[in-house]
């Protein structure tokens, strides 16, 4: 009984205006302080634990999701105030469609209402200068939600200061698959994407002209015609034989049928990367997963693989607040400092 009484007093104290005013000030100062150090450019959140939180507090599952949304709003504010450029959140996995129908419906309704409100208050959003992007399988978004998604994305498109990526029906493997497929499409479409910087035709021509110059100086008879066979550089790998002198057998190549496709050897990790949903975003600096689950669970696999600091936190997502984020940020800043020192000492 006394416990209950105490918690009431505690609640009353923290909710009294002076205490709230003080806490607000303290948070402001804390964020201003942390901004003095390096700030991650891209942070990803896997918002896990809404349902377990609801279960622990004996409230409806969907209530848990609503509280989770409040936490998201809190986190976004903290992130943008401290200068994080891109925040990516995992809102809904493709696998989540396997959940009970009522819950999926509730989640979709939540998304719909929130996006609708967002659209209503468009000019307020501009104050943050944030643009919203929805990443994932568009086809899987229910028809009644889709127009709101499009409206919200369209309305905030012009904002450049900050980005909020909402992964909504998303899995990382689906993303990687679509990136691979897009790369294949790029390299199997007959149109030429870009001219290679160095042209083999040009090189052979130059060498040939050098040859002919030399022979010219020796014999001063032969007339070189370097421009005669000036072929277009469209064929990227093999030069056509017409441009070559019959006297230079070393340079001669067999006539190949002109290739319509770009060379697949030109595909690099960057090519695939440019086809992922996060192509324009800076590399992922921090990955945070709540509720003490230590798996990536099909989120940001491609992006996480390098130089990303992964943090698994014990708290449930609805509880997540500045007090959970600050230690993460501090530790990240500390590690950045250590890495910098290491690099300097190596040089």
């Amino acid at each position: 009984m006394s416990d209950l009484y105490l918690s009431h007093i505690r609640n009353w104290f923290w909710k009294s205006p002076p205490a709230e005013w003080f806490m607000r000030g303290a948070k402001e100062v804390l964020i201003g302080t942390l901004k003095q150090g390096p700030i991650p450019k891209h942070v990803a959140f896997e918002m896990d634990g809404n349902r377990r939180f609801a279960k622990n507090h004996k409230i409806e599952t969907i209530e848990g999701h609503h509280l989770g949304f409040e936490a998201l709003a809190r986190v976004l504010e903290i992130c943008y105030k401290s200068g994080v450029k891109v925040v990516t959140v995992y809102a809904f996995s493709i696998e989540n469609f396997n959940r009970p129908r009522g819950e999926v419906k509730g989640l979709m309704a939540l998304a719909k209402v929130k996006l609708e409100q967002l659209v209503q208050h468009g000019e307020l959003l501009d104050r943050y200068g944030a643009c919203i992007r929805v990443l994932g399988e568009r086809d899987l978004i229910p028809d009644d939600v889709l127009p709101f998604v499009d409206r919200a994305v369209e309305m905030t498109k012009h904002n450049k200061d900050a980005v909020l990526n909402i992964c909504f029906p998303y899995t990382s493997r689906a993303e990687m698959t679509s990136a691979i497929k897009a790369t294949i499409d790029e390299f199997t479409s007959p149109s030429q994407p870009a001219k290679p910087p160095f042209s083999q035709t040009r090189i052979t021509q130059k060498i040939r002209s050098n040859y002919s110059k030399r022979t010219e100086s020796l014999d001063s008879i032969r007339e070189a015609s370097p421009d005669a066979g000036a072929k277009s550089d469209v064929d990227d790998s093999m030069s056509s034989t017409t441009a070559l002198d019959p006297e230079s057998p070393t340079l001669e190549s067999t006539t190949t049928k002109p290739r319509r496709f770009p060379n697949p050897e030109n595909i690099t990790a960057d090519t695939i990367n440019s086809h992922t949903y996060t192509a324009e975003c800076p590399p992922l600096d921090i990955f945070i997963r709540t509720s003490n689950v230590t798996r990536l669970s099909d989120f940001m696999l491609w992006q996480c693989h390098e130089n990303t600091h992964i943090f698994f936190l014990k708290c449930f997502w609805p509880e997540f607040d500045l007090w959970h984020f600050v230690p993460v940020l501090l530790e990240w800043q500390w590690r950045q400092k250590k890495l910098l020192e290491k690099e300097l000492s190596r040089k």
Partner: protein
Amino acid sequence: MSFISKDTQIYREDEKSGHKKLRPEQREELLKNYLPAPPSRQRSSSRARKQGSSRLGVRRFLKAQLYALLYLFIHAIFSLYIRTRGAYRAVSSRLISILKHHYNSPEYIARDVATLSRLPNHLSIILTLENGGRGDALEKLVNEVSEVAAWCAAAGIPTLSVYEKTGVLKRYMTQTHRSVCHRLKIWFGKHQVPALALFARGAPTIRSHSRQGLDLILVSEDDGREAMVDLTRVLTEMVQKEKIAAEDITMDVIDNELSEAVMSEPDLLISFEPYVDLQGYPPWAIRLTEIHCAPDNQGVGYQLFLQALRKYAQATFKLGK
């Protein structure tokens, strides 16, 4: 900052009533106090009004000084905290590893894992080559691989994959195989030594006997994004030559190919680093892998291995449900 309690209450009541209680204008009113000042043009005027007394920016200067000072202070404290934590953990893990040593005996390890409800089928570890490979770094690495391989064989884990960024082990596959076999022989004795098969992408498999035993897969940075690039190249070429249609390439196809060529999805990944650092680990494979890493951990230790197995046994898999 986040809502004060009164506003939170208003917000939640509105939410409960299905957003009928507040009109859009009222909601806007509710938010106004929390929004940052409107950007660009309007900002300068509002600031001039607010800070009329400090036109020279004294207040801002003092604020910046305060922030800088606080930053140094907080980081000094945090640094102290992290070092203390690191020292404490190093000492305690040292003590535990002395008290609960496995004495290189398979029976001891088998007894340790006997109480676990399940074991991973495929365990993966991340190791690092120290000092850029100078000195006896390679020997140390091979030693660590053999050590973990012996633990796996004793615990009854059939597959172990070792990720090492530079891929130096792949260049010394026969030596690695010999060294691991030697270690297993010491542990299990000449007659009960389990067979060892050593795999690496694009290299012939080295097997000791035909009997069932431990599968050891060597993985490096090239098997991560690069492997996916290679696969994309192959697929592109096939589509270009019209051997397959682009529409037929599905997640299944890619998954099958990558798990055959590189490795299947590990069940448990242990990082022996002080913090989770994937270092370019194959992105495709680690979808649902349980990642274990003890903060501030230094070096490869049996206690961490056991801890990870215990945690894995307790973890629940829901697959989005």
